[in-house]
């Protein structure tokens, strides 16, 4: 629903026919787009600063007063179904969704943001209007503006344009994250006909935003495993033993429960051995603290990556908006200090707590002949 609504926002208001907003922004030489994740939907425009007022006015009109016309709803559903079909043709997406389902079970984090054909066909324009009025409210919304603008004038502009929210609708159920820790390894296999190599995907639940420091520690551990050619798993599995085509590790911060994954692309013959080796390397992380020189290398990598990804107005707006939506904007600048403060022993303890080689979910994709 949230993702489909993100599409429908662009279908106009009583004042704006469908497509009018896109026309306005692109006439200014600007770019507009949107994306939906599990924690938030985000809409952005990127225009030269003299067009800020026009852009902001148009965007607020869409966000606050989306009319969600019935006939557009039916048409746009076909577009979302195409987006879903395109995703379903991507074996990495298919594997990842199955992994999320087994990791988060009944929680919405376990479901695809795109929905399913059945869930999409079961929604009505009325339900969507309800959903819109429930969530697109001032206390849930962050407006971030970065660029060559004056502060007071811009604040006034936001006050002026972001008024007249729709009447509030009471929220429905909240889903608690399953905090029953996994008792064992939850392993599933899937055969796909169009794949040319196997995949091994492994996932662990991490802390939510309320344990931000610990979450950043997992970011460091993820880099230690696969953050470059000299990282542990890349060096051993890709370069030296040549058992995988590629191996990666990813940490993603989510509000209620962050996610730690290790993924490998490999020949099906090597699946068991590679899973066992990854388990051994995790055991090492939980047993032996890494050397200071290794740790400082990973710190440096992450801090520089952070600096490298905050060059443009667009990147900064995304960063501030993200943190303000899941917590508060000001913590977005604390990342390098958190990372620098870690000691090797603390990371070992975090690995022991969160990254058990005996308790995780695994998704294995094998090619079908």
């Amino acid at each position, binding site marked *: 629903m949230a993702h489909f609504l993100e599409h429908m926002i*662009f279908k106009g208001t009583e004042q704006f026919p*469908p*497509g009018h907003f*896109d*026309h306005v*922004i*692109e*006439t*200014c*030489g*600007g*770019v*507009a*787009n949107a994306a939906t994740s599990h924690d938030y939907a985000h809409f952005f425009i*990127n225009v*030269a600063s003299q067009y800020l007022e026009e852009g902001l006015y148009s965007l607020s009109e869409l966000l606050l007063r989306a009319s969600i016309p019935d006939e557009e709803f039916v*048409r*746009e559903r*076909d*577009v*979302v*179904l*195409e*987006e879903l*079909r*395109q995703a*379903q*043709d*991507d*074996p990495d997406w298919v594997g990842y969704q199955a992994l999320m389902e087994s990791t988060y079970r009944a929680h919405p984090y376990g479901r695809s943001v795109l929905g399913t054909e059945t869930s999409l066909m079961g929604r009505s324009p009325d339900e969507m209007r309800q959903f819109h009025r429930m969530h697109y409210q001032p206390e849930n919304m962050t407006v971030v503006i970065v660029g060559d603008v004056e502060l007071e004038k811009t604040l006034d502009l936001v006050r002026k344009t972001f008024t007249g929210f729709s009447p509030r609708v009471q929220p429905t159920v909240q889903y608690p994250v399953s905090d029953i820790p996994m008792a064992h390894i939850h392993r599933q296999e899937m055969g796909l006909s*169009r*794949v*040319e*190599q196997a995949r091994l995907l492994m996932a662990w639940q991490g802390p939510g935003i309320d344990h931000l420091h610990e979450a950043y520690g997992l970011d460091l551990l993820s880099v230690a495993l696969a*953050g*470059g*050619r*000299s*990282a542990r798993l890349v*060096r051993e599995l890709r*370069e030296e033993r*040549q058992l995988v*085509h*590629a191996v990666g590790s990813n940490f993603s911060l989510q509000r209620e429960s962050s996610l730690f994954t290790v993924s490998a*692309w490999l020949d099906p013959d090597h699946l068991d051995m590679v899973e066992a080796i990854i388990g051994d390397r995790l055991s090492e992380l939980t047993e032996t603290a890494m050397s200071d*020189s290794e740790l*400082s*290398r990973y710190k*440096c*990598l*992450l*801090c*520089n*990556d952070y*600096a*490298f990804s905050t*060059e*443009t*107005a*667009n990147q900064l707006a995304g960063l501030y908006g993200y943190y303000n939506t899941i917590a508060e904007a000001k913590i977005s600048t604390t990342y390098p200090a958190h990372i620098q403060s870690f000691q090797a022993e603390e990371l070992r303890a975090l690995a022991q707590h969160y990254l058990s080689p005996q308790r995780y979910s695994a998704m294995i994709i094998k090619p079908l002949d």
Partner: protein
Amino acid sequence: MTQSRNIHHTILQNGLTVIAIENSAADIVASRILINGGSRFEQTGKAGVAHLMSAVLTKGTDCLSSQDIAEKVESIGANLGTDATTDYCLVGLKTVSSDFPSVLKLAADIVRSPSFPDHEVELERRLALQGIRSMREQPFSVAYQNLRRAIYGDHPYGESGMGTEAAVSMMTREDVWAYYRDVFHPSEMVVSIAGRIDPEVAIATVEDVFGDWNPSRPETNPPILSSKTTSGYQPQTVVDVQETMQAIVMLGYPAASVHSSEYTALKILSTHLGNGLSSRLFVELREKLGLAYDVSAIYPTRIDPSHFVVYMGTAPTNVETAINGLQKEINRVCQQALTAGELQIAKNKLLGQYALGKQTNAQMAQLFGWYEVLGLGVDFDQIFQDTVAKVTAEEILAIASHHFASPPHVSLVGPQPAVTLLKASAE
């Protein structure tokens, strides 16, 4: 970013071009080393050698092993990567400003004295073969690849940069060396630098690590474009049956190179048709008909004759409607001039996104270095923008009706029912 950005440009004694752009916004220096090479220079039967060479380039020098290099880079949190595209090979790096000289020195070492160790060539060759096979997992890649083969025949633009399974499975370390010796020469190289660094210092740093490099110059000629694109145009329909959820439909035409006077008009046309939420294909085929999520146009900037493609991903039952819809929009731009409003919005969009595409240091270093290696020079940045402003709707109409007069090549990837539908509609 301002238009009056100061771009320093110089050529060293050995022919190496240096571009330096000072931008103090962040404590970052990015550099792009571009070599006039790429898959365009691959000889017959060697498709994929540029990609393989660039994959092995960072995996050993006369004095350093692959892990030595990785540790040097990663221990200071720098980025160092290589790539090979159709028209150039690339070594890219990004560092905090103070680390720049040492990382550039390492990059120079890699460029000047690679060792291409046997076991690293073998590892990357195996992985490249796997990469070629894995491309078949992505329906879009398959459709685009089939279309390019139809358009280009034997010219290297006909293959993906990864090369062919046949060629890569036979490839040897000697092939990698031969390709390297053919294309890596200072007179064919541009070092482009942007970031918090004095341009004079940047140029001196390059001089310091590259100035005494004078390898002997081999004779080398890129292959000539196959006759397919230059004469005897024969539109083909290529069908690839795959059990996918979605069918990919592409229509493609040979199109002008970046050196052609028609280049800018075609860029405006591809923007009009396929770029953004207000573009023609998006509005007509996605907004009004709900046929697709991804529908767009592709017109890559190339030294040799390029190609112009319109495509979409759609439900298998929609294939015929999709092809007709794409063709209808192509026909329309051949028959009717863009209105003043349409032309203006396309120009604004093109120039607006052009400006957004040169914000980071890496983007700036890349853009100006690329213009240099394409043989356009850094002035092309301004020339391009001025030309966009001047193009008229009549010129675009004339160019479109000339380029798109013949039926297009058609590429389709999809399940059997979609393919059957296409055949039925062709009869």
